[in-house]
């Protein structure tokens, strides 16, 4: 990135003024839209004091929601990494009919509202759905259980890793991998010692974005989870539920937890970016 220094003192008035105005507007907008609301969450969560806060957080249902959310992220992120690398590799290294179409297909979740994903899964796996009777007969529970939540979260987050890794793979080309082959490396050695180190930062970055999205996913999950307290409620759903229960303090406490999780991820991303630069 190249940053332009402020113009010298002899620059015309407006060329000094415009950058200042824009900077001021950017700062003001991020304060109004991001910082103030977030600060408000924290202040409300702690309004009744530490005691009330920890009580709200430690309520079994909220604890379970935290656990479930983390579990979903832990399952989804590795699967996404595997899928993202495979998809990026195929698209970057091979030319085949339908390559462009595949690329578009993989990016669909970016543009589709997550709630549509949820409804798709409902229609597919639900009791009246396409596979519903078969699943029921074989006693497989997908909807209103962990598998459904994981599937929808997978759908929503699937493009993240691939989108980060692909441009790098395309820019790097395949010569390093070919060189490694002619030096006697096996396919796995080429991947582990040449391909993977080259994409490691993009991969981590993609995984972090994917993790953040997985933790925060609401719309799609709300359709397939069934909102069973202490069983299928993820943290975002739990916040929604507490809020509608008029348990504002509890809702804000849970929101604080989710926000903190997101902040941890954000800090991780920032560290990653500074290392990559």
């Amino acid at each position, binding site marked *: 990135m190249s940053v332009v220094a402020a113009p010298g003192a002899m620059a015309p008035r407006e060329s000094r003024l415009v950058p200042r105005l824009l900077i001021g507007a950017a700062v003001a907008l991020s304060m109004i839209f991001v910082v103030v609301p977030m600060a408000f969450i924290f202040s409300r969560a702690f309004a009744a004091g530490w005691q009330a806060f920890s009580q709200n957080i430690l309520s079994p249902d909220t604890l379970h929601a935290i656990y479930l959310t983390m579990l979903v992220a832990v399952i989804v992120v590795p699967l996404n990494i595997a899928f993202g690398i495979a998809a990026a590799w195929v698209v970057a290294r091979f030319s085949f009919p339908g390559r462009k179409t595949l690329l578009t297909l993989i990016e669909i979740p970016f543009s589709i509202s997550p709630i549509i994903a949820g409804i798709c899964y409902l229609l597919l796996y639900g009791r009246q759905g396409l596979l519903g009777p078969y699943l029921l007969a074989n006693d497989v529970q997908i909807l209103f259980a962990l598998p459904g939540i994981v599937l929808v979260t997978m759908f929503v987050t699937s493009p993240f890793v691939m989108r980060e890794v692909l441009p790098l793979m395309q820019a790097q080309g395949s*010569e*390093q991998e*070919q*060189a*490694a*082959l*002619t*030096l*006697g*490396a*096996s396919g796995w*050695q080429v991947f582990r*010692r*040449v391909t993977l*180190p*080259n994409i490691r930062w993009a991969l981590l970055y993609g995984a972090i974005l994917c993790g953040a999205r997985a933790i925060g996913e609401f719309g799609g999950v709300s359709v397939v989870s069934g909102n069973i307290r202490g069983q299928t409620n993820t943290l975002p759903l739990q916040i929604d539920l507490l809020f509608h229960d008029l348990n504002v303090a509890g809702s804000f406490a849970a929101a604080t937890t989710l926000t903190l999780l997101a902040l941890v991820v954000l800090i991780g991303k920032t560290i990653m970016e500074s290392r990559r630069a």
Partner: protein
Amino acid sequence: MSLTVQNLTRRFGQTEVLRGIDLEVKSGELVALLGPSGSGKTTLLKIIAGLDWPDAGRLVVGGEDWLDKKAQERRTGFVFQHYALFPHMKVRDNIAFGLTVMDRAHRPAPATIAKKVEELLHFLQIPHLADRYPAELSGGQRQRVALGRALAIDPAVLLLDEPFGALDAQVRRDLRRWLREVHDKAGTTTIFVTHDQEEAFELADRVVVMGAGLIEQIGSADQIYDHPASPFVARFLGLTVEIPVTMRAGRAEAAGLDTSALPRRAMADGPATLFLRPADITLLPSPEGAFRVTEIATTGALLRLRMEGPADCQAEAELPRRAAPALSLGQTVTLRPEVGHIFPGSPTPAQPAPAPAPVSLIKESSR
């Protein structure tokens, strides 16, 4: 190891990239594949490395059929034009790579690998670069590392694709001499691809001239330079002036041409084409001359002239400016070729010569 290529063909869709290549390379030989871009030379190199596969033909190295082997099993240590060093590894680890990926049964002990890398670093005159990353090296240094990485595995055949293509002129000349030394000391059978005839001639034991998927000529630098085997080779070597002549009793004849300096040829009478280098033409100003000077350009040391002859025949000449006769635009001259090559048949019309860089420069500067 010796290498035999037999009747190798390769098609990309409709395009025939290799149209039946036959080639023998002796053990320890240094061979250049020379040709313009699109002649199939890099494809041939990649097929030898196992990075591409032919549609038909045979490839035998050291008595083994290499078309039964994958790239990993051939272990050629292909050197890419842009080096393809591993950016996340130090120079030392780049060079050691081929040794560290060997299977457990054959892999040398870490100490042995370190010792071998150290030896190679000294052999390549880069011991001070051992702990740097590729991004911290100049082009020439990267090329040395890439070669070291390939030599570390004691390749059966060392393959280099345009090894000096991405370097500036001075580094190019130095590395060329250095590569010859490395080859002689290491004794590896080496094949390299280039489009630069000077590079091919200076470096290689034998030069293989390729054009449009076929081998046009194989020989030493002198053989090819003095006796180009086909009009294609002649054009590629800078004999870019083509004048239609008529053969009569072994002599080439044409209006405005004084061919007294050319020896008689054992060629049948009839139409033929005389191929000349612009520098091998002497201009004799003469009122009856059939060629008219249309352009004069100077490079300081040289005068470059374009002339128009009978039947739209275009000719170029290059002569030392200080020794040149006084010439002006529109003047008529007679051309006296000092050296030239004659191939039977009329010149192929409107076929641009696949000229090497210096010749195309002349055209541009005199335009």
